[in-house]
């Protein structure tokens, strides 16, 4: 029931675009709609926790649904003011802005679909839809850079997704091969996992991890990501970074569960660790030499995807718990940052770090939020990422990956240094004289505050819902 509504809401909202003429109206409608879907995702979660069988999906899906809903709600709150501002700066026309909301809703719908379908084929299709829809949003400005970014995005992700298709087929082949039945249903595959041919599964999983890993932004397949994230509209960047990447991780996780069960041991772990470390390495290197503030955040997303991959790779109850929690924490934190940076970029009219100074003066509210967000992102207490990172590190050390843990810390410190170096220059300093201080509209502010609550709270005390859902995933993984 709830899931249907959750899935229906974005569809209805995108249809609403045909009837509602005013942008403001659309924005408000969106907010309401996503509030609704957030509420329903929470209620679905609670229902699942009290009676696990009563829903067609498991805790993993619900965890992602909740994450997506949270970020989508915030993005919806933020979009209104942002689009208005874009219009007022003549970056997009009013007419074009009307196109934004349907695309936004379709995008969210596709992501929700990915995480709720049980059929792996359908999931593949849904992921492809996310690519297509979001590509429009990446190229929304329709200038040279954004179109190029969108093209790169589509081509690279499509190649990736083709590989993922191969992986999917291989899995299905293995299933057919060992059971005789034909199905792409995850539940069936999972239950038959131990009987699948390990060699095929190994190959298949490689295709999956590379294929979906491309979309997830794991290095070295991450190459599309910095361009796409920096060119997209800021609320979309938030969605891209905050949740889209994670939906691909979701897909990898699903296959990972099967592969783990089939192969046992550490095959999946090692692959995840490998890609996790690669991602950290690449992002650490590239963050250091960034000039574009949004690209900087994009690379930081690669870092965090790496950390998440590491968390899953290291595994164990603490590691997995940490990785999942980190996924949520990163989603909210990164969204907040993209929102804040979006405002800054809009006010300064530049994404170049060197030309932005004194943001705290120009945008007192957004500046403050970004300041908090940066420290949150860097893993400072009392913000939540500190706790999830510590969990992953703790798992690394206590599960015999001490060297890995040290390396991870090393990269985190380097990235931290770079981020602090660049952002302290952006935030502090003298405000340029020609910049007029910007007052964010109320819904925009609410979006920040909404996310900030999660950032502040979900480290000290993981919300019951999240905690329950994560625990159910642990049970699913059999740990």
């Amino acid at each position: 029931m709830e899931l249907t509504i959750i899935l229906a809401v974005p569809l209805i909202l995108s249809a609403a675009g045909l009837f509602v003429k005013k942008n403001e109206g659309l924005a408000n409608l969106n907010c309401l709609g996503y509030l609704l879907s957030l509420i329903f995702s929470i209620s679905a979660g609670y229902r699942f926790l009290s009676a696990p069988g009563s829903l067609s999906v498991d805790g993993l899906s619900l965890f992602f649904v909740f994450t997506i809903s949270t970020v989508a709600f915030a993005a919806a709150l933020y979009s209104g003011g942002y689009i208005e501002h874009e219009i007022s700066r003549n970056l997009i026309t009013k007419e074009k802005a009307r196109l934004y909301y349907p695309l936004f809703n379709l995008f969210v719908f596709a992501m929700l679909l990915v995480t709720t379908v049980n059929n792996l084929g359908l999931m593949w299709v849904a992921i492809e839809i996310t690519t297509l829809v979001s590509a429009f949003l990446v190229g929304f400005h329709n200038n040279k850079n954004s179109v190029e970014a969108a093209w790169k995005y589509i081509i690279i992700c499509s190649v990736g997704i083709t590989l993922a298709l191969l992986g999917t087929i291989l899995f299905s082949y293995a299933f057919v091969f060992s059971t005789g039945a034909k199905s792409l249903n995850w539940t069936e595959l999972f239950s038959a996992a131990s009987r699948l041919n390990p060699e095929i599964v190994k190959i298949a999983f490689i295709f999956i991890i590379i294929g979906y890993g491309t979309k997830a932004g794991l290095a070295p397949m991450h190459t599309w990501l910095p361009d796409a994230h920096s060119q997209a509209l800021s609320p979309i960047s938030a969605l891209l970074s905050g949740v889209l990447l994670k939906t691909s991780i979701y897909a990898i996780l699903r296959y990972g569960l099967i592969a783990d069960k089939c192969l046992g041991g550490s095959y999946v772990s090692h692959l995840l660790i490998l890609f996790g470390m690669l991602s950290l390495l690449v992002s650490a290197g590239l963050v250091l030499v960034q000039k574009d503030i949004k690209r900087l955040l994009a690379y930081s997303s690669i870092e965090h995807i790496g950390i998440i991959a590491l968390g899953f790779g290291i595994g164990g109850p603490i590691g997995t718990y940490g990785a999942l929690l980190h996924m949520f924490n990163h989603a909210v934190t990164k969204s907040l940052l993209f929102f804040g940076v979006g405002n800054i970029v809009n006010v300064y009219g530049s994404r170049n770090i060197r030309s932005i100074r004194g943001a705290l003066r120009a945008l007192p509210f957004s500046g403050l939020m970004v300041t908090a967000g940066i420290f949150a992102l860097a893993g400072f207490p009392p913000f939540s990422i500190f706790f999830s990172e510590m969990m992953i590190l703790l798992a690394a050390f206590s599960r015999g990956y001490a060297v890995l843990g040290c390396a991870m810390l090393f990269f985190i410190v380097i990235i931290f240094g770079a981020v602090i170096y660049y952002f302290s220059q952006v935030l502090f300093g003298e405000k340029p004289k020609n910049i007029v201080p910007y007052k964010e509209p109320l819904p925009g502010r609410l979006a920040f505050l909404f996310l900030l609550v999660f950032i502040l709270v979900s480290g000290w005390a993981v919300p019951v819902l999240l905690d329950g859902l994560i625990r159910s995933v642990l049970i699913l993984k059999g740990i």
Partner: protein
Amino acid sequence: MLLFDPLSVFFLIIILTISIPSFIYSFGYLKGHYSGRKILLGHLLFALFVLSLLLVVSAGNIFFFLIAWELMSFCSYFLVVFDSENKKSITAGTIYMIMSQIGTALLIVAFLLMYKYAGSFDFNAVKAALSLLPAKHQDILFLLLFFGFGAKAGIVPLHIWLPFAHPQAPSHISALMSGVMIKTAIYGMIRFIILTLGVNSLWWGELVIVFACLSCLVGIIYALMEKDLKTLLAYSSVENIGIILLGVGGSMMFLKLGYLPLALLAMCAGLYHLINHAVFKGLLFLCAGSVYRGTGTRNIEKLGGLIKKMPWTSSYFLLGSIAISALPPLNGFISEWLTLMVFFLGALTVAGGIKLFFGLAAAALALTSGLAAACFVKAFGITFLARPRSAKAENAKECGLSMNIGMGILGVLVVFLGLGAVYVVKLLVIVSGSALGIEGGQIQLGSNMYLPSPFLPLLLIFFLGLAFVLQRSRVSTNQTWDCGYYKLTPRNEYTATAFSKPFRRAFGFFLRPYRTANKSKDSHYHIKTFSYETHTTKIFTKYLYKNLLGWIFGLARNMRGIQTGSIHIYLGYIFLTLLLLLVFMGRY
């Protein structure tokens, strides 16, 4: 959650002792300098900072300690960049934050290793588990903890943030940072290395002492070269951390060697200096802030003659200078005396080469205190004495009441800690006992043998009185004699650069001084303008950090090559990865 043993309480008291006067001081200091909202923010951050400091020293388990530790860095960062419009502040903040995080990263590794061995973050559980650990692992833990805390304490060569960060913060914060915050690292060392890990090898103590000596000397030599009053004080903090660590390191050695009374005494010396330094460095920073408020500059080459314009501030600064130069009868003297005494007594007790080791450490300390005296003659003499060297100094104004009260409290403490040494030591024995995990009552220290002669202040006062009586005579005022030239200007006064020149020359191997001279000429011998400046090379920054940064950035720049922008290459990555994985699949 919280832990209140004598060690914690000792640190809690120090924190409060410094933060209360600093807080009082801050009212006068912030007023008029910042807008109302910013002042409020300042007080809020101050309160948070003090809270985090309190939490650090009273954290009941390791994880909580880590959180408090990070909170402390977090708050202090914002205080460093409090003058957020100032470019220097931003740089200082960044350097501070990065160095602090490097240290914290080392600590996190250590803590997680502890967790790995103990399965818990509880101090006692960890302690029990660690005692079973093989020596090699303990050594690794020790190194991680020592350098992790060392980064915060500012031991050389991890000190580079300190001279940036401390001067940039508002002065009452500098007082707190230099006076207290870096001491929490000492607390950490005691709590984690001595109490939790337990001293396992003699070389631990030796390493601590070696780094302590290095910090002492490097810190004070840099301080001597410095022209910025607050940076000078910051470097001097590096020095004093070294002196404190001499005591702590000595204590570790004696603990390992089994001389408990000496270990206790060494710890007493270290802790005594710790509280002394907190008090007089706090006082000096507050005075420096007052000078800054009164004149608008911290460059001592532009100051001078302030003793007439700012009588109170200069008296306090003099008091602090005497104390920090370890001159009797004030507090710095007692603790350095105690430290020296410990080394002497230790040398008598231990055998062989360690005697020489202690001897050299004592000499290093003596050299340090000699240089410190020179440094503060310079700091006080050039800043406050003689004639004003610029209009800013000419128009200096004395600070207001609240700032005076703040300084006054610390000034009284400086005197008390010097004259009331007997009582202080009694308390410190208890604290040291707690710091070493032994009951203070178990060990009897002979009473007065461990303090300088109690007659000393009396003798001083008596002879001072006598001298004043003798000095009374007819006095007249006249021009300063300078070989008969009639027109002396402030340009004829000794400068700070000049004062430190002999040291620059003597320690040239380390300071690598160089000079820049620019002349514009009419002919070879007709010089129109001539400018001349001397500089020193910060060798740690130049040879260690710059290289390291260059190396990292070089790698990063090379790495940018992978993000070429060409889709073909991007796709190539994907297929290459696929290929490699498939080929090497068997490995997984």
